[in-house]
Every structure is written in structure tokens, then in C-alpha cells.
């Protein structure tokens, strides 16, 4: 579309540009700067003496120092996770006792008393209710502790320092330094992380940031890591070190995610997305004392509840589906069994099993429901009985012990746990992130790559780990 008026104006503009020469941009910027400096100077009175001690500078010198920058990052993240691991058990045990040990048998009793049809009872109570109850008792406690802590760090102003520390590393990987910020967003939610890549101007570097964002552990996957690590890694060491060992394992997985981000960025920027890293300036904002109450409120209401709600929304129908595929039989065996048996050989190659792979497929809409789905399938298909029975008996058991018991009964070993932690980090992004990627890139090709690249990497990595593990451990 062109307009006559527009053409006329453009002609004049071109003629004038010819006359004024090329330094307009510099002149303009300089004029603006001069004006701004003059006006600001008149309005601001600086203190007579610089304070001898500048707290912000001092903190910055330490947290962004070459020597201490990285260790401090790891220690801070480790502490956040350690606190989560240690504290999550208390509410988790309470919720587990309430929802699964008490209410679940009660609902079954009510259903029996009113003579509810067995399949309605199955879908509603063994399917929808149990899946939802598991999501709440297993996922809610770590979330409710992790998010506020993470948000406090963010509110304090630590994230830009992380970006500052990682900037040169990302540059070396051929990616944009700001990718460390979109990665940090990805630690919350990958879909949000993908959107935040808009701060990167170069389309090449933006694509790299989008494709690798999935390697940042998200909301839906932190609790998975924390639970598995608590049950299996924590059990490897004496009790007083269990929390620390579990936290260390989770930090290890998160750091592995960062390393994979760098590695994949490096490969991409030297193959399909060739080019130089562009420079930018990053502003380190002042440290601000976090507003604790507001942060608690915002992170519990906005983050925890929203994520939990999303998990429930996906878990409830998933629970119904899982119950159906576990109870609708074809030729004497439930559908789920066919799926599990079909995927089992492949799963075992990866150190996983059929149940876990089915769970990852069911959980494509939301990573949050991986663990609940695994539990459901293990209980329903594995023919396990006695879950929630005898409410008083299981009272002393905490939820981790109960969850661990179910998983071990499902044939889990330490290798399974390690493989699940790895595969949870390295597999296809959730459907929301895939859709967001499509919206941001507008390209089916890049969306497909973003979805499949980590999946195949996950297959490859878990395969090698499992083979080597079996060779060494036997």
C-alpha cells in the first residue's frame, strides 16, 4: 500500500537527508544528552562528601568477583533448595495424611455406603481425586517454600548479578549475554522465558536463547527434582546429611542445565546459527531491601497458586484418563498395560521404565503432573493395594517415605531416580512453551527443533548414563 501524500513526504525527506549529511543521528543523540545533562545538573544536589562506605558497591565487588561470583551463585541456589528440601517435608506429611490417609478412605467409604457404581467411584475417587490429592500433597509444599525464597532473591536484585557473572561465558558460547536473563526467567517458567527473549535484538541470538531455554529447570520440574532427590539421593547418606545431599543433587541438575544451555548455544552458533555475539550494556540495579510480606504474598498467590491450579487443572482430567486406561481392558489386560509394556523395553534402555515414559507423555501439557502420574500408574497398574488403608497405621510415615515406598514397589532403583532427574531436565518442553515458541518465532521449523532437540538429547544422555551405570555398578 502506498499513498501519494506519503511518497511526496518521502521525496522531500530524501532530498533533505542528502543535504544535511550523515551525522544527524549523532547530532540528535548529542543534543538530547546535552540537554538532559544540563537539566539534571540544575535539579540535583549531590551530597558534599561521598560516603566512605558504599554498601552496594561492596556487595557487588564480592558477588560479581571472578573468584567468588560462581561459588556464591551455587551456594545461594543450594541454600534455597536445601531450605526447601528440609522444610517441605513437614507440610507435605500433613497434607499426605489428611488427603490420602484420611479423606481418601473416607470418600471410598461414602461411595460404598451410597452404592455408587464402581466405575463412577473409580473415575471420580481413584482417578480425579487421587491425582489431584497427589499433586497437592507432593507438589504444593516444595513450591510454597521455593518460590518465595527465589522471589526474595529476585526482589533483592541478585538476578542481574547472575547475568553479569554469566555474560562472558555466554559470549564465548556465541550467544547474547542477555540470554542469561531469559534463562533466569526460564527457571521460573519456560514459556515466560521464551517471551523474555524479546530483550535480545539479534534474531540469531534470540533463536539460540529460545531453543535453549528449556534447559532451565522450570516451576513444574523443580518439585519433581526435589522430591526424587529427597527420596533416593538423600537416602544414600546418613540422616543428618540427607537434606544437604538432596539439595546438592538438585543444584547439580540445575547446573547441568546451565552447562547444556551453553553447550547447545555453542554448537548452534557454530553450525546452523552462525555469527558473532553482539555487545550490549547491562545495568546493575541497586540492591533493594526485599519487601518480605509482599513477596510472600505475591509469590504464594501469584506463583504458587497459579502453578498449583494449572497442575490441578491438568491433573484432574489426567487422573480420569489414567484410571480409564488402567481399568478399561482389551483382551483381559488394561490399555495402560499395553502402553507400558510397549514402552517398557525402550524405557529400560534409558534407565527408565514404561510407566515413566507414559507419565511423561501424559504430562506434556504440564510437567507438574509427572510424579503424580507415575504414582497413579504404579498403584493402579502395578496392582498395588493398601494405599491409604488403615489411616492410623500410616500416621507416622511421612509422605516421602510413602511416595518412596510406592516407587520402590514399582521397581525403582537409584539408576531410575537419576535417569528420571536427567530426563526431567532434558526432554521436550511443555505444550504451553511449544505454543509460545511458535508465536515468538512464527516458524514451524524452529518450533519443531525447539521441541525435539532436547527430547533426542534426553534419549541419548539417559541411554549412555544407563549403559555406563550398568557396566560399572552391574
Amino acid at each position, binding site marked *: 500500500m502506498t499513498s501519494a501524500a*506519503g511518497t511526496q513526504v518521502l521525496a*522531500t525527506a530524501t532530498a533533505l537527508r542528502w543535504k544535511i549529511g550523515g551525522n544527524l543521528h549523532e547530532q540528535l543523540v548529542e543534543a538530547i544528552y546535552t540537554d538532559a545533562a544540563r537539566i539534571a545538573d*540544575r535539579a540535583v544536589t*549531590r551530597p558534599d562528601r561521598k560516603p566512605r562506605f558504599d554498601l552496594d558497591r561492596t556487595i557487588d565487588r564480592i558477588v560479581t568477583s571472578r573468584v567468588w561470583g560462581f561459588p556464591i551463585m551455587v551456594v545461594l541456589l543450594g541454600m534455597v533448595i536445601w531450605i526447601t528440601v528440609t522444610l517441605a517435608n513437614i507440610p507435605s506429611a500433613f497434607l499426605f495424611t489428611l488427603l490420602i490417609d484420611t479423606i481418601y478412605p473416607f470418600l471410598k467409604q461414602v461411595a460404598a455406603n451410597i452404592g455408587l457404581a464402581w466405575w463412577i467411584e473409580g473415575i471420580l475417587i481413584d482417578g480425579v481425586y487421587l491425582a489431584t490429592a497427589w499433586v497437592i500433597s507432593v507438589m504444593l509444599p516444595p513450591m510454597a517454600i521455593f518460590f518465595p525464597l527465589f522471589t526474595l532473591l*529476585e526482589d*533483592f536484585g541478585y538476578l542481574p548479578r547472575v547475568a553479569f557473572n554469566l555474560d562472558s561465558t555466554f559470549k564465548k558460547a556465541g550467544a547474547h549475554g542477555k540470554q542469561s536473563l531469559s534463562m533466569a526467567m526460564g527457571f521460573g517458567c519456560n514459556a515466560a522465558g521464551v*517471551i*523474555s527473549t524479546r530483550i535480545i535484538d539479534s534474531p540469531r541470538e534470540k533463536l539460540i536463547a529460545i531453543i535453549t531455554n528449556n534447559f532451565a529447570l522450570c516451576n513444574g520440574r523443580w518439585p519433581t527434582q526435589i522430591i526424587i532427590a529427597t527420596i533416593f539421593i538423600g537416602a544414600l547418606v546418613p540422616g543428618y546429611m540427607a537434606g544437604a545431599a538432596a539439595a546438592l543433587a538438585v543444584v547439580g541438575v540445575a547446573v547441568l542445565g546451565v552447562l547444556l544451555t551453553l553447550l547447545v548455544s555453542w554448537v548452534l552458533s557454530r553450525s546452523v546459527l552462525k555469527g558473532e555475539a553482539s555487545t550490549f550494556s547491562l*545495568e546493575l540495579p541497586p540492591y533493594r531491601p526485599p519487601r518480605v510480606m509482599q513477596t510472600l504474598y505475591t509469590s504464594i498467590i*501469584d506463583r504458587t497458586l497459579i502453578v498449583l491450579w494449572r497442575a490441578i487443572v491438568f491433573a484432574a482430567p489426567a487422573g480420569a484418563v489414567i484410571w480409564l486406561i488402567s481399568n478399561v481392558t482389551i483382551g483381559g489386560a488394561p490399555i495402560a498395560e499395553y502402553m507400558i509394556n510397549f514402552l517398557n523395553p525402550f524405557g529400560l534402555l534409558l534407565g527408565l521404565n514404561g510407566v515413566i515414559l507414559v507419565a511423561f507423555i501424559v504430562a506434556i501439557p504440564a510437567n507438574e503432573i509427572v510424579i503424580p502420574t507415575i504414582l497413579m500408574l504404579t498403584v493402579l497398574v502395578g496392582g498395588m493395594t493398601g494405599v491409604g488403608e488403615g489411616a492410623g497405621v500410616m500416621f507416622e510415615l511421612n509422605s516421602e517415605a510413602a511416595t518412596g515406598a510406592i516407587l520402590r514397589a514399582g521397581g525403582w532403583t537409584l539408576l531410575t531416580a537419576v535417569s528420571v532427574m536427567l530426563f526431567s531436565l532434558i526432554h521436550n518442553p511443555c505444550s504451553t512453551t511449544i505454543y509460545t515458541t511458535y508465536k515468538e518465532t512464527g516458524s514451524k521449523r524452529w518450533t519443531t527443533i525447539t521441541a525435539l532437540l532436547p527430547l533426542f538429547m534426553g534419549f541419548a544422555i539417559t541411554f549412555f548414563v544407563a549403559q555406563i551405570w550398568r557396566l560399572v555398578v552391574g
Partner: protein
Amino acid sequence: MTAKGLPSSDCVDCPVHLAGNLLKLGVDMKDWDFVVALAGNPNTGKSTVFNALTGLRQHTGNWPGKTVARAEGGYEFADKRYKLVDLPGTYSLLSTTQDEEIARDFLLFGRPDVTVVVVDANRLERNLNLALQVMEITDRVVICLNLMDEARRHGLEVDARRLARDLGVPVVPTSARYGEGMDDLVHMIDEVAAGRFVCKPHRIEYLSRSLKKAVSKLAAEVEAQFPGLPNTRWVALRLLDGDPQMRQAVRSGELGELAQQVGAGALIGEVA
């Protein structure tokens, strides 16, 4: 914005008693009377101001570049409904990253009734760079001199009156995190939106003589071809700078359509 006790009946109508007057509308933004844009450098607290006024809880974080898409919300004040648009933070309107484009396009084509430039009192000089550019695009600007609490902590004194006089637009000192100055801000937005306060914004000086001539010549041409366009000087500047987006807007006649839309804000829905 805490109302300390109920205002006495005499106070209710008085514009000084604003706390009771402000109605946070959240995302309920039907039939707004005025559109207010929130612009500013990254990490100056735009989203915090946004939340304080609308009662919404846009995620705020202490790092630049958090808001990449614009968020919208509303509030009601003195019987007028305001639609508030939180724009991504930008250092300037002259460059071409995606988040900066969103802010620039909205100011230019979305034509807000009032633009609030949130500036960091601690980094006034750099923040004014953007404020001056915004003031080139639109007259109706209110400067929200935010983070005054931090400025006090650092022993800085910022003379808001002096600043207002030099800039020719209202300057409201605030600490949005603690809700300080928000009452004055809504009041000032109201004054400017209703036209009771007429801004005489500072224009960028120190352009060379030949450039000044070129700008005014081209601005006159733009004015002739697209009568009614409010920011001809800025359009001329951008065209002389060879801004491809602006050239496209001119070529396609999109600018002309804008000039037709006298009722500002009518276009907002369409500029995505």
C-alpha cells in the same frame, strides 16, 4: 495509598482527599475516558506504579527488562475512568529492539491522552534522555520522579519544582514501592488529561542551524500532507534519520489515517 480513617464529609469532594477517590479497577476497563501510558527506563518501577494504581499484581522484579509486552489495567478517579498501559522499559526511542519498538509504537500510534514517564531520581540525567524524547512525541507528559526513598538514602536532593519548570511538565516525586506520592500522581494525571494543566514541554535544543532548517521544512511538509498530525517534528526527525519503520508508516499512508483520528485513544485497540 492507605486511607487513614474515613474522610469527613467536607473532605470528600476536595481533590486533596484522594485516597477515597481512587477506585482500582484491575483489568475492568470498559468505556474508559482517558488512556495513560507508563513509559520509562528499565527498572525504574513502572510496574510498581502500575500495580499501585490498578490494584493488579503485575509481576515486579528488581532487574531491567522484566516487562517485555505491554500490560493494561484501569482505575477510576474523580468520576473519570482511566486505562493504564504499562510499557516495556526503554533507554531511548531511537533504536530498534523489539521491546523498545512496542513502547515507541504505542506512544506514537496509540496516542495516549497522558504519558507518565517514570524516572529514577538517582539517575536523573540518563533517565531524562528518554523523557526528552517522549516530550518530543507528545505534549501531555507527567514526570513521575520515582525511587525518592533511594535518593534520600544516598543523600541526593532532587528539586522537583526546578525540574518541572525546566521541563515544562508536572513532576511528581514518588516512592511507588511504599505508595508514597501516588495520590499526587493520579491527581496530576487528571489535571493534564482534563486539560486543566497545560504542558509546555521543553524541546531539544542545540541542533545545528542547517538541521533545524531541514527539520522545520520537512515538518511543514508532513503537516501539509497529513494535516492534524500532532507530532510532525518527531516524524520529520525520524524520517531525516532514515528510520525504516517511520518511512513505512509514511509510505503506506498509515500516518494519514492517524491524523484523521482526532479522538485520541480510539486507535488503541487496533495497534497491536
